[in-house]
């Protein structure tokens, strides 16, 4: 059975305790903002607002908690590729549904 890898060797710079606490606070504020936005008279912008705030929250988690900001090229490339793929798929499906 393989043993866990010894450390630290080429370990990425990690998020500081202060950064983690600020990110957590930001996530809580953004969650409150999402909830408030859902009850505000935004009309057709409800969906855009909710998903926009969700995207910002996901970026905070990815860059601070998942340490993507300190990660190398490959993790960033995979994350970007995944996002592009999701965007492409959703856009294609909505276009198909709307213009069928």
């Amino acid at each position, binding site marked *: 059975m393989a043993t*866990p*890898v*010894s*450390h*630290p*060797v*080429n*370990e990425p710079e*990690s*998020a*500081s*305790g202060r950064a*983690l606490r600020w*990110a*957590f606070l930001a*996530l*809580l504020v953004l*969650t409150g903002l*999402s*909830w408030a*936005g*859902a009850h505000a008279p935004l009309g057709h912008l*409800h*969906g855009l607002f*909710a*998903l926009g*705030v*969700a995207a910002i*929250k*996901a970026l905070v*988690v*990815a860059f*601070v*908690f*998942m340490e993507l900001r300190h990660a*190398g090229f*490959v*993790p960033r490339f*995979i*994350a970007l*590729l*995944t996002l592009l*793929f*999701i965007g492409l*798929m*959703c856009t*294609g*499906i*909505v276009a*198909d*549904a*709307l213009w069928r």
Partner: protein
Amino acid sequence: MSRESAALASQAEPSPYAQPETRRAALTLAIWVFLGSETMLFAGLFALYTGYRALYGADFAHAAAFNEEWIGSLNTFVLISSSFFAAWALHAVRAGRRVMALASLCAVIALGLCFLGLKSLEYYDHLSRGIAPGQFYTFTRLPQHGARLFFTLYYFMTGLHALHVIVGLSIMAWLLHRVHRKRTTRERHVELELGALYWHLVDIVWIFLWPLLYLIR
């Protein structure tokens, strides 16, 4: 190449993953590829939701109003907190603060169980009213086809997510055991990094499920 010569060659050239730095790089690449594939799995469901939402917008909006918003919102707070504690556990291990790491991992597990408890409560409430997936849907207040589709997707998406939470909790319990037995330490903790990354992905998926299933009406 015969078996003997292959064995000799393997002895002469040690595995490229024998070195800690190359193994670490390989594991990091593997987890990110895995997380990418997991995201694609959910992306299919998100895309399906987007397509049906475009076709049955009004039905989806009415159906979302029957989800318990307070449960979804509380679960969002619970998962975000658990994600913070997962990151804090890693931070504590790197700083050599074992007790804090243990406490953080316990918090992750407790919050994960809380999430599942709240989700079960909502499932029970829905099922008792006839809000079930697919052909089992018997909710008379929303007989529209779009509402049936919404709740089928709701069960698929939240069910798959809950399955990931259960897997994540198992990993966290294993990591708790390792930290407790001093097998995961300040010097060797790559498994905690990988486990925390997985848990954060579970959190990110919920960050999008919450507005789609509870808030956008």
